[in-house]
């Protein structure tokens, strides 16, 4: 098992949080993991991205420059990182925000209207977790128990009321595409 994941989108879409969920899940599964955010001048609504490595062996560079999986939550992210994805890699796009299609033929593309699906279920702002659910379904990067526990660990103690909503959003992702 070796997954180099790049999550990208707008600040405020929960990009870093989603990365943390994946990292925690991988860790609980006994994998080596790393999580690295992009950082720069603080700007609300600016672009954010996050590199997550999940591997059976120690991780060298935590910076994902050739992702196995790209989650693009907005158009600039897709445009910027599409070409970086490894051949036969996976690109997941929030199709309720991004109208464009993946141009490459040598990668697998998944289009999921995560933002709309979340909103339809009264889970506005939880598109990231819908994507996380689908990511799990597509890649099976850890055990089911570790994935759920990873979500629990990622929600801060003082925001436990949000845990159920996060889990509900993940369910939407898991059931999507059927």
């Amino acid at each position, binding site marked *: 098992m070796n997954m180099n994941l790049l999550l990208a989108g707008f600040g405020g879409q929960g990009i870093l949080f989603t990365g*943390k969920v994946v*990292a*925690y899940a991988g*860790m609980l599964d006994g994998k080596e*993991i*790393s*999580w*690295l*955010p992009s*950082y*720069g001048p603080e700007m609300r609504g600016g672009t954010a991205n996050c590199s997550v490595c999940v591997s059976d062996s*120690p*991780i*060298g*560079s*935590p*910076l994902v*420059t050739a992702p196995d999986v790209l989650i693009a939550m907005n158009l600039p992210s897709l445009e910027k990182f599409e070409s970086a994805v490894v051949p036969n890699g996976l690109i997941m796009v929030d199709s309720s925000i991004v109208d464009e299609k993946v141009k490459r033929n040598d990668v697998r593309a998944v289009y999921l209207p995560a933002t709309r699906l979340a909103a339809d279920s009264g889970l506005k702002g939880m598109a990231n977790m819908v994507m996380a659910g689908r990511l799990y379904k597509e890649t099976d990067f850890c055990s089911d128990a570790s994935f759920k526990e990873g979500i629990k*660990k990622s929600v801060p103690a003082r925001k436990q009321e949000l845990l159920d909503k996060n889990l509900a959003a993940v369910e939407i992702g898991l059931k999507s595409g059927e």
Partner: protein
Amino acid sequence: MPEKVLMKGNEALAEAAIMAGCRHFFGYPITPQTELAAHMSKRMPKVGGVYLQAESEVAAVNMVLGASAAGVRAMTSSSSPGISLKSEGLSYLAGSDLPALIVNVQRAGPGLGGIQPSQADYWQATRASGHGDFKMLVFAPSTVQEMIDLVADAFSLGDEYRMPAMILSDGLLGQMMEPVVMDDTKRTEVPERPWAVSGHGNKREHNIVNSLYIDPPNLEAILKERYEKYERIKEKEQRCEEYRTDDAEIVLVAYGASARISRSAVDAARKEGIKAGLIRPITLWPYPEKAISSRMATAKAFLCVEMSTGQMVDDVRLIVNGKRPVSFYGRTGGMIPTPAEVLNEIKKMNGGI
């Protein structure tokens, strides 16, 4: 065994300092060390400690000087431009024989440079941290776990040798999260400091913490004595990690974030049948001269990998002393080398041997 938790390098280092008995932190905001100070501001009031946001880096390091002189474990953290401002204080700490921890979460320079990870402060840390003849202990973590583990070492060796210690990290290690274990059974005791200016209590002569020796023969004698101490440290405290070096013909030398990348490159080279290995200095001062010297037995060539235009490579060249070719590969300005780029360099060298 405490459980593994996911922590950011900056926060892990801060928590480790608290675990090591540090209760006095003086800092000034700068990217990319921000989370370190923020963590301290959150945690220090809970453990009865002091977090003070100073008016400048200059003031912060001098507050550290005062606190250390008064006998407590004290630290400051910053990123490259801020370390330049602290250089005055570093010189005075060394000249006053005071222990203190200084953390540099390196970013690109010179000037304001950039805020992305860099290793361009190697010379500053090991050579030119301030005016005058002096050295600091310099530790280079390459994982978040090491950001934790080296803190206790930096504090306790600083105490043992009465000198400032630096943790030379970078934006990559500071910002990334990895699983870590916070093992507080490794907590080190803060030793007695009979030299401290904590008030003589009418029980002893007054203590003086000072770096001024106006009489040249006296100052020379003190400097010589300090350099004898440095020699003892060089003998005793060199640390590095060797990876696949036993039969290595091409020996990479890299520290910190560059070492992680080089390690991947070594694995990739081995898969292609190239006998590559890695020496990862953990102490940058004292530099692991012994390990590099003894590796000349198998090495046909050395390759230094850094996130700079080539600084540590000087030390490797000094040790190798012309007996083997020493190449350099680096990215700078906030660019991070990839394992593929490093592998390419290894291949070039392999073809050239």
